[in-house]
């Protein structure tokens, strides 16, 4: 048995789309995004401000 693959217009666009998707959405492993807690940030800024660093 032989499967024949017709390289039709639809096929062509489909393949192109798959390739573009693969290239475009490939993500290199990378470091995590820095997450923070806005309330903690505010509190920390307050604390840092309240210390006399001039000693």
């Amino acid at each position, binding site marked *: 048995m032989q499967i024949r693959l017709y390289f039709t217009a639809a096929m062509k666009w489909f393949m192109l*789309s798959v390739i573009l998707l693969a290239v475009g*959405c490939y993500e290199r492993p990378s470091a995590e995004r820095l997450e923070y807690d806005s309330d903690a940030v505010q509190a920390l800024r307050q604390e*840092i401000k309240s210390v006399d660093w001039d000693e």
Partner: protein
Amino acid sequence: MIGPRIAKGCFNIAYLRSLPCFGNRLSCLPAENSSTKHTPNHPAKRTLKHAIAKLVFALTALMTLGCGETLPPAYKLNSVEFLRQEKLFLGSGEHFDDAYKQEIGSILTALFGTPNEPLVPALLGEDDPVLEVMRPENINMAAGPVSLDYHGKGGGLYRQHCSHCHGITGDGNGPTAAALNPYPRDFRLAKFKYKSTPLRSVPRDHDLTKVLVNGVPGTSMPSFGTLPDGEIAALVDYVKFLTIRGQYERYLMAELSNLDDGEPLIDLKLAQKYHQLAAIEQPTEQQEEELEEVEEQHLDSMWGVVGERLMEDAIERWVDADDNETEIPEAPDAFDSGHDGHRDFVATGRELFYTRGNCAQCHGDTGVGNGQIESFDDWANDWIKTPGVNPFNPKTYKTFTEAGALPPRPIKPRNLTEGRYRGGGQPEEIFLRITNGIEGTPMPATPALTSDEVWALVAYVKFLPYGDVNELPDRQINEKAIAR
């Protein structure tokens, strides 16, 4: 195409349009021809097929767009250092509490802000010397999204010129980084190669400016000499900002192994308790005692985490960086190529190259850089020295590359016969490289040589690309050189 889509390496539709075949009504090949050749179909059927094909394409294009993130740009965590600390201090399979990642994020954001709203951590107020190290107006000009105001003054310079290679965090891991050789610099180790100060002293503004203006020949770092001085200065300050921030982040992570389980870096509950106690107007004796104790604990932790590690360790070394400049003594007369003794001087340099200078061991007998070549630079050494990691076996460091580390590559000793010098080819620059060594690389400093000996080496290095070793006197010093 300005979109610095750092968060996700996603496909950019603007780039699609710029490709010739898509710009032209989205058709690449003469569809008629191809279809008549293979499938002699009815014209109506063909139109239908084309319609389906275009629909599929449009859908995929939409999906492609859809995978772009709408989150505002953020700095990245130093996941590699976090992992390294775990491997150094914890047993296999053990991890630090994930809450520490967020706490580090909060502390860093409190002090340094976000990429769109950066902050200069001036703890001492208006007189803080850090405001001279990184001027807030410069930081604001270099950070943020790319913009241009009516006066033609640009903003977002770092994202426009630097971030695609150096990354928005300055981690040397922008979208293009993996494809470059050498890799772009990761600022967070606070190490710089081409500078006029010794090892472990920070570079002067002058040095960073020079790298920006001249670029680094032989690497992917181009010259930004066409930018106005003000913009260069802004970028220099922002590089320092990212360096200080990155180094402080590493210091914070190094503290983790000192903490007991669940103990935070900065205990906000303790701080709260302190403020509550301090607010009591007529405290009892017991309360007073408690206040004293809590105050001490609170201040200790604030000084330990912020005062010492940020102000004293990460920032202070940048204040008065100019004081550490290495003095370059004047070259002896024989250094001048017109001088009668010049050939002898170069021959002295050649002798040192093979003997007390130890140069040939790495740069090779003929100076083409083929000596010891299995070393790594410090940006790789930083994590490949972790127990269990073998830089020549990717399986042993998979966890690190997954955390964002670039696969380590051995560093090559420079080919001295090319006449191309990354830090600049002026004799003074080469003098500095030999005297101070090159930070972050195996190239050592040479405290055992006198300045005249270093000048002789400089003369030989400058002679190597163009001179003929056969013309040098005293041939038998090393016949290997003549084999070139």
